[in-house]
């Protein structure tokens, strides 16, 4: 599957301008072989909205229709899959969500999946749970590549989320993100981006899974979104990466055979499936104990 990972620089709160910029990206890609286009977290509004999230959040069908309209306006004459992060208004409950839609179908647009961010960072510079409700389920879904899952930003920082996705069959993990860059002591690279790379690489290598990451870029009130859109092979190798500061696109072919080969070489996921019951049924795990107390 041919994928395009878009490092996107939104204008804060200016949805029409950001949709127009999305249309420009589509126009650049429409005549090529791309089958999946991934935009970052909160791409159509910018990330830090505080109370304005209630003004700008839309429901998933509205977001899907807007994305589909841009694809068609850009001359997209065939179906294409698009992932985009957006603030979702689900009947008055607000989420930091990412939409996986199939655009350009003769019958309209098809929502394949909506992932609602489960880990809402609310510490330091982050304040998400003050304004948003967390998602409650990590589901996988079918794509032309195979089974996939979406993890939004901090979702991916917890080893368990990618593990659950892989156990459910994911062979591709898509990570839309908005990460304020910090830490300047690094050797030519932000410390926060070094950390991201380590997380994404080990996630890919442990489960034998493709990991693609689309990062927001541009400054929001002094906080610089750190871009670094990147792709990791199922062996954990960094295949491509953009810098932190400029918009851009990574064009990459994802080969399902690479997943099979990685898993055949190091069958960690198979090993985990076998051992999982012993780990999971361990009554010393706090969550298990609490459930028993509840019942």
């Amino acid at each position, binding site marked *: 599957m041919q994928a395009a990972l878009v490092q996107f620089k939104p204008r*804060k*709160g200016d949805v029409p301008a950001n949709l127009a910029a999305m249309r420009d990206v589509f126009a650049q890609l429409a005549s090529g072989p791309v089958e999946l286009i991934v935009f970052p977290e909160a791409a159509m509004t*910018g990330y*830090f*909205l*505080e*109370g*304005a999230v209630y003004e700008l959040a839309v429901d998933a069908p509205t977001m899907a229709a807007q994305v589909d309209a841009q694809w068609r306006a850009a001359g997209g004459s065939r179906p294409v899959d698009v992932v985009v992060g957006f603030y979702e208004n689900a009947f008055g409950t607000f989420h930091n969500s990412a939409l996986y839609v199939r655009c350009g179908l003769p019958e309209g647009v098809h929502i394949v999946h909506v992932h609602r961010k489960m880990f809402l960072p609310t510490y330091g510079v982050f304040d998400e749970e003050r304004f948003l409700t967390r998602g409650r389920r990590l589901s996988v879904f079918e794509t032309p590549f195979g089974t996939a899952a979406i993890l939004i930003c901090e979702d991916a920082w917890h080893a368990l989320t990618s593990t659950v996705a892989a156990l459910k069959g994911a062979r591709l993990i898509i990570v839309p993100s908005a990460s304020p*860059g910090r830490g*300047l*002591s*690094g*050797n*030519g*690279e*932000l410390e926060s981006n070094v950390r991201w790379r380590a997380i994404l690489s080990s996630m890919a290598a442990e489960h034998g899974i493709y990991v693609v990451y689309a990062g927001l870029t*541009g*400054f*929001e*009130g*002094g906080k*610089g979104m750190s871009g670094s859109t990147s792709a990791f092979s199922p062996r954990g190798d960094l295949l491509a990466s953009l810098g*932190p*500061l400029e918009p851009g696109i990574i064009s990459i072919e994802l080969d399902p055979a690479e997943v099979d080969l990685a898993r055949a070489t190091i069958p960690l996921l198979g090993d985990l499936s076998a051992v999982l019951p012993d780990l999971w049924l361990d009554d010393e795990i706090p969550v298990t104990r609490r459930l028993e107390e509840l019942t």
Partner: protein
Amino acid sequence: MLPVVEVRPTEPSLQIDSALTAGWLEAFLRDEMQERRGTPRAVIGLSGGVDSALVAYLCARALGPENVYAIRMPYRTSSPSSLDDAQRVIDALGIHGETIPISDAVDGYLAHAPDADPRRKGNVMARTRMLVLFDQSARRGALPVGTGNKTERLLGYFTWHADDTPPVNPIGDLFKTQVWDLARWLGVPHEVVDKPPSADLEANQTDEADLGITYAKADGILNLILLGYNDHAIAARGYAPAEVKLVRRRVDGTHWKRHLPTTALVSGTAINEFYLRPVDF
């Protein structure tokens, strides 16, 4: 005997990658000035010290020297060498330079305040410079760019609603020692970087004498305080307990200086309490 690797309490490094830092701050200036606020023009109060010199260098690189206006604002007691040092920066960068003395304005007010002590006089000078910077910015369709560093902000070593007023500040999250490192890397003239820092509000004044501690030690202690270490843990990393206490007292006594005025909350829509919008919305 087996070899032993002994691990002692470590201190987080304040070292910065200067090329990375400069690139990041220049991108910040371009986004914040040109794209969001719609002007590439910056007005900087150039004192002759390293902070404003560094900001001038960053602005010149980010926005082009033709868009940078350096204003020197001497009072009659200001050190002549400060004017010379500011001129070195103007000449090195090819930015616009203008000198607007503040003596008449300051003395005009002080004639009505004969009891003003040096601290009050210093605050009047700082606030007069603020007034000049904003007016000179309005004259040019520019924005004042701030020059306060993280160390002076944390120690409260500035005049509230004067040095801290410019709406854009590229160096406010850099400690003083990091300012020096970045300034050297960018080629700020050594006369500016290597001289003892001074607010130059009184004759022979130096920051380190005012503060009672060197910047090198203050920065190390401040960094550990910000990371959450208690005084005992900081002293265990080699700092004198009296200096740790001094720095913590200054930080804890000046939290108010890092905030907007305290407003009585009486409604469920109080600004910045319930009604929350980011600065760039």
